[in-house]
C-alpha cells in the first residue's frame, strides 16, 4: 500500500438552487500523501469549502470517487460516514463550533462519546492529554465564553486530536483570530504535522498558506495550481519575531 491517504477522481459537486444547477466543484483530481500539510487557497466561491466538506465526509459528491486511506467512500452508508468522521478525521472550524456552556474538557471528550471502537475507555484522561498538547492544561474547566478566541480554537484543535485521527481538516482556522494568535495556532498545527498527522487547511491569506508544505489553489471549482512551498515559514520563529516586535513597540 502506498502512503497516499487522500485521492479523488473527477470529484464533482453540483448544488441545486430551485431549478438552476450551480456547479461548485468540477472534476477535481488531487492526491495527498500521509504527513503532508496542505493549504487550499482560493477566492470565495472557488469551491474550496465544498472540497473540504467532501474530504471530511460531511457531504456526498454528485459524481466522482473519493478514496480515503485506500477505501472508496462513494458507496458508504450514512453510518459509515459518521464512523469515518469519528475515527479518521478531526475538524477545526473558523467559528470554533464548541458547545456553549460546556467546559473545555467536556467539549474535548465529545468525539470519544461516539467512538464505537472504544479504543480508550478513559475519556477524561484522553481529553486532558489532548488539551495538554495544545497548551490548555490550566483551562480545562472553563466554558467557551470564559476563553479567548485563540484559546477556544485550541480547545477545538484538542477536540479534533482526541480520537487520534489520521487527518485534521481546518476550514479557515484563523479567520476569526488576530495575527499573533493565528501564528500560535499555526505553531500547533506545525507541531502536530511533525508528529505525523496529515493537515489540510483552507485559507485565503497567502501569508498563512506559507506555513504549509504545499498549496492547492482553486478557481471556479477547479484546481488551477498545485505547488510545493519552497520558502516555508516556521511558526515558532515567527512567534519569536512577533514577540520582539511587540517589545520594541513597548
Amino acid at each position: 500500500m502506498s502512503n497516499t491517504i487522500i485521492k479523488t477522481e473527477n470529484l464533482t459537486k453540483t448544488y441545486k438552487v430551485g431549478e438552476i444547477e450551480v456547479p461548485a466543484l468540477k472534476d477535481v483530481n488531487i492526491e495527498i500523501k500521509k504527513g503532508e500539510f496542505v493549504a487550499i487557497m482560493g477566492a470565495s466561491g472557488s469551491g474550496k469549502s465544498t472540497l473540504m466538506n467532501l474530504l471530511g465526509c460531511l457531504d456526498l459528491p454528485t459524481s466522482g470517487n473519493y478514496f480515503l486511506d485506500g477505501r472508496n467512500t462513494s458507496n458508504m452508508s450514512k453510518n459509515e460516514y459518521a464512523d469515518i468522521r469519528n475515527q479518521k478525521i478531526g475538524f477545526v472550524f473558523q467559528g470554533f463550533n464548541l458547545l456553549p456552556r460546556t467546559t473545555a474538557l467536556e467539549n474535548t471528550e465529545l468525539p470519544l462519546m461516539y467512538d464505537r471502537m472504544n479504543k480508550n475507555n478513559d475519556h477524561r484522561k484522553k481529553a486532558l492529554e489532548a488539551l495538554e498538547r495544545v497548551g490548555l492544561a490550566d483551562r480545562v474547566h472553563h466554558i467557551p465564553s470564559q476563553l479567548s478566541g485563540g484559546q477556544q480554537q485550541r480547545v477545538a484543535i484538542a477536540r479534533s486530536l482526541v480520537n487520534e485521527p489520521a487527518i485534521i481538516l481546518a476550514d479557515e482556522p484563523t479567520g476569526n483570530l488576530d495575527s499573533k494568535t493565528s501564528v500560535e495556532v499555526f505553531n500547533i498545527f506545525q507541531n502536530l504535522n511533525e508528529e505525523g498527522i496529515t493537515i489540510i487547511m483552507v485559507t485565503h491569506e497567502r501569508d498563512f498558506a506559507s506555513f504549509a508544505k504545499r498549496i492547492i489553489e482553486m478557481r471556479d471549482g477547479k484546481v488551477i495550481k498545485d505547488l510545493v512551498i519552497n520558502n516555508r515559514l516556521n511558526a515558532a520563529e515567527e512567534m519569536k519575531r512577533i514577540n520582539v516586535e511587540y517589545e520594541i513597540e513597548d
Partner: protein
Amino acid sequence: MQAKIILKVAVKSIMKSRMRSLLTALGIIIGVAAVVVMVAVGDGAQLQVENQIASLGSNLIIITPGTSTTGGVRGGAGSFNRFTFDDVDKIKNECLLINGVSPLVRSGGQIIGGIGNWFTQVQGVSPDYLEIRAWDLQSGEFFSDRDVMARSKVCVLGSEVVKNLFPNDDPIGQQIRIRNVPFKVIGVLKEKGQTAVGTSNDDVILAPSKTVLDRLSGGRFISSIQVSAVSADKIPEAIVELKSIMRESHKLSPGEEDDFTIRDQADLSEAATETSRILTILLASVAGVSLIVGGIGIMNIMLVSVTERTREIGIRLSVGARASDILIQFLTEAIVLSLSGGAIGVLLSFFIAYLLNNYTSQSAFIKPEVIMIAFGFAGAIGVFFGFYPARKAAALNPIDALRYE
C-alpha cells in the same frame, strides 16, 4: 454510546435551561397530579360507599312484613304484620346458614335523664343484633338473652344520645326514663357515623326486644327480623332457606303468596359501587386530556429546542455522531422530562390527597396501580411526543446543521 452517558447528556442539557424545562414539565406535572388525584377522589368515594354499606352490617338480610289486601285495597309494605318472636326462634333453631338473628321492635319517644331530655328512637333487639349490625360497644356491656326473657328494663345508648343527655358524666349505671318507663343504662355504643342517606346511626337506644314490645310499643308483632348470613356468597342460599322457614312458620299453603319480603344488601352496594366507578372514569378521562395537552407542550418545546440547537447537532454529527445517536439523545431528553414531570406530579398528588383527607370532608385514596399507570402514561407521552422532534433532529444534514445561524 452507553446508556449512562446518554442519560447524563440528556440530564445535562435539561439542566442547562432549568426554567424552560420546568415549565415544559409543568404540563405533565399537572396532568399526572390531576389524573392521580381524580382517580384517588373517585376511589375514596367508592371506599366511603363500601364502608357505609359494610356499616349496615356484614352479610345482612332483612325480613320485613308483607302487604295486606282487604277488599281489593292493597296496603303498603308492612301493612300485614304477623311477625312474632316464634318466627325469630324458629329461624334461630332451624336455619343453618346464618350467624345470628334478631328481632327489631321499633319504638321511640321523649327520653328524660342526665342533663335534660331528648327525642329519639328505641330499638328492641336481641344480643345477636350487635354482630349482625357490625357494631361495637364503647363501654359497659350489652344485655343478655336472660335480660330479653326477663324483660329487664336495661338499655344501651348510642353516642349521639350520650352527647345530648350525658355530655360530661359517665352514663353507665344511670337511670333514664323512656316515655316515663325507667331504664338503667348498662352500656354505650361506639360511634358509627352517618348512614348512606345522611342521618346519624348513633341517635338510637337499644333495649331488650321483649321489654320494648311489652313496655313501650305495645301490641304483639315485631317490626322486622334481621339476620346475618355465614358469608356473603351464602346469602342467596340463606334467603331460600329463610323463605321456606318463614312460609312454614306462617303456615302458608303452597299456592299462597308470601306475607313477608326478604332483602339483602347486594343490590344497594352494586348500584352504589357502579355509580362511583363511572364517576372515577369520567374524572380520570378529563384529567387524562390535560396529560395529553402536557405532552403536546413537550413536543412544542422539543421542536423549538431542535431548531435552537441545530448547531449543536451539527457539531455532534461532525465529530462522528450517527443519526441514531442524535435521535436517541433527543428522545431521551423528552422521556427524562416527562418522567421527572410524572414523578413530581405523583408527589404533588400525594400532597393534594393529604390536604383533601385532612382538611376537607372529601377523602382521596391513592392506589399503587394508579401511580404506576399515570407514571407509565407520562413515559409513553414522552416517547410519543418526543419522537417527531427527535427524528427531525436526526434527519439533519451535517453541513446544513453546522452552517445554521
